[in-house]
């Protein structure tokens, strides 16, 4: 158990270092002279030098990297070139949109995928199972932003039931805030649900063919009892894995859905700063997201140890 946790922890830290170096190099090395880009083509060389000195951009890359990481570790994510706002403030104000959207989207996705996947597996080879499979195939092919556009056309423009975009902060009107999230969550959750249904189906199918389920059946359990009491705990492992794999998909989906419904979340902030060449803001925000994803995957590895005693004895 200790060895397993140690190995996963080492991977967690290694992944953080590797991805931070990659992001830093991508932005700094591929981006060229940051100060010149920020100030634009007409800037005088003196102004460029002044900005570079002010933000320490004239120091060696390694020093800048260590400075950045040191700042991140002590909670200082840097400041915007243009407005001098701290990235921490910029990010926290956006989280009240992005986190509920992503969490509710994932929850809805699981609420769809787990029953649908189990149903499709239990009815494999029958028309009803094939139908769920087909629905999931079609859902996988639908771009999440198109689902968003269609839903906002139907419920927003034609029926006028729900807002098609915009945001009211939770502190102003929680009900309105929730209403603004209904269509975004619906689009994100349905598409994620379609994608995850396939994984749940094959995980359950795998388990249903195992000897221990047959033994449970032979000892008098009904098919449902055997599946729910014996099988699901075993199917839980691959399903938990899927959640980890879907993290990247979830974040990509959240990014794009925020744009469809003009929600002032993290994604719009990143995009606006990408357009404005605010390298420090982009670099720190992207790194935060990556830290989050890697951390979730680390938690999932820990969940493995709890769900599957075999894992604890090493791989």
């Amino acid at each position, binding site marked *: 158990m200790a060895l397993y946790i140690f190995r996963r922890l080492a991977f967690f830290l290694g992944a953080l270092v590797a*991805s931070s170096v990659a992001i830093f190099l991508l932005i700094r090395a591929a981006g060229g002279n940051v100060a010149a880009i920020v100030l634009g083509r007409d800037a005088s060389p003196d102004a460029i030098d002044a900005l570079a000195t002010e933000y320490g951009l004239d120091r060696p890359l390694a020093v800048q990297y260590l400075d950045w990481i040191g700042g991140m570790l002590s909670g200082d994510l840097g400041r915007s070139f243009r407005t001098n706002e701290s990235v921490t403030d910029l990010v926290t104000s956006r989280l009240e949109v992005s986190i509920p959207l992503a969490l509710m989207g994932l929850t809805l996705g699981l609420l769809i995928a787990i029953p649908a996947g189990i149903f499709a597996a239990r009815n494999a080879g029958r028309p009803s199972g094939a139908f769920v499979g087909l629905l999931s195939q*079609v859902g996988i092919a639908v771009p999440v*932003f198109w689902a968003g556009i269609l839903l906002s056309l139907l419920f927003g423009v034609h029926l006028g039931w729900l807002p098609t975009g915009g945001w009211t902060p939770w502190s102003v009107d929680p009900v309105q805030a929730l209403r603004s999230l209904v269509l975004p969550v619906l689009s994100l959750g349905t598409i994620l649900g379609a994608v995850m249904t396939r994984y749940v189906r094959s995980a359950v199918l795998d388990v249903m063919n195992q000897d221990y389920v047959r033994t449970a059946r032979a000892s008098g359990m009904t098919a449902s009892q055997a599946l729910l009491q014996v099988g699901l705990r075993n199917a839980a492992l691959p399903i938990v894995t899927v959640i980890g794999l879907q993290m990247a998909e979830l974040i990509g989906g959240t990014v794009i859905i925020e744009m469809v419904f003009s929600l002032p979340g993290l994604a719009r902030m990143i995009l606006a700063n990408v357009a404005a060449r605010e390298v420090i803001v982009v670099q720190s925000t992207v790194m935060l997201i990556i830290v989050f994803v890697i951390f979730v995957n680390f938690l999932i590895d820990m969940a493995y140890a709890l769900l599957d005693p075999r894992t604890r004895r090493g791989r």
Partner: protein
Amino acid sequence: MRWLNASLLVGLVLTLAAISVALLSLVWLPYHPNIPNIPERMLPPGAPGHPLGTDTLGRDIVAQLMVGARTSMLVGAGGATISLTLGTLLGLWAAATGRMTDEAISRLADIMLSIPGMVTALVLAATLGSGMWTTILALSAFFTPSFIRVSRSAALAVLQEDFVTAARLYGRGRLFVLARHVLPNIAGVLIVQFTLYFAAGILTEAGLSYLGVGMSRPGISWGLMLNEAQNTVGVSSPLALWPGLAIVVVVLGLNLLGDGLRDVLDPKLARRAA
């Protein structure tokens, strides 16, 4: 022998249709897809000469969809091909050599897999500028680790086989064994993977272009068309319909093709999934 299943047939038809449209767009288009024609703007579907209507600038929708098909095919196939090549080379290398290399390549793949692709693409677009090549590069970066994983584990299984041991005992070198015995035996798995990532590439490209960090005019992409349509959605919903339908049809086609091919090329897996 049930080699022709429904998935394969439908997938093949849809994919070939998409490829044909993309090829046709190279030699023939009903109208210029980019030149505005204001007198004929916002024509509804079924208008004379414009079966699917025109957009806010009077540009023909069919012509734009055709060029969009070409973009999707190029970007999807480009991203999938580069990651197939790189991923297979690295995967085979990891499988064939000793512990250290294998460990290094596998962990690298794990790390790359845990970085959200959409966000990385935004960063790439910020530093390299948006466009077709950046998009292909971004797709290759997200997809390569999956190809590493798949080719590595498939190759490891083949390397256990008796015929590989026989070839080694016969004195064949490592490269010969990989090229002659391993690669042909994992080709099926790789072809399936290629098809599925081709589809994923089309979806991702559409998303990036929708966000404004993929293709931009004069380039045309279905995602870009949806981006433009959303600004006029209240006025004309058909504009938001066609490009989305095109994406669904092509991606569904490729995914069905991939599933169908899996059943044919990899009977062991197919039996488990059926």
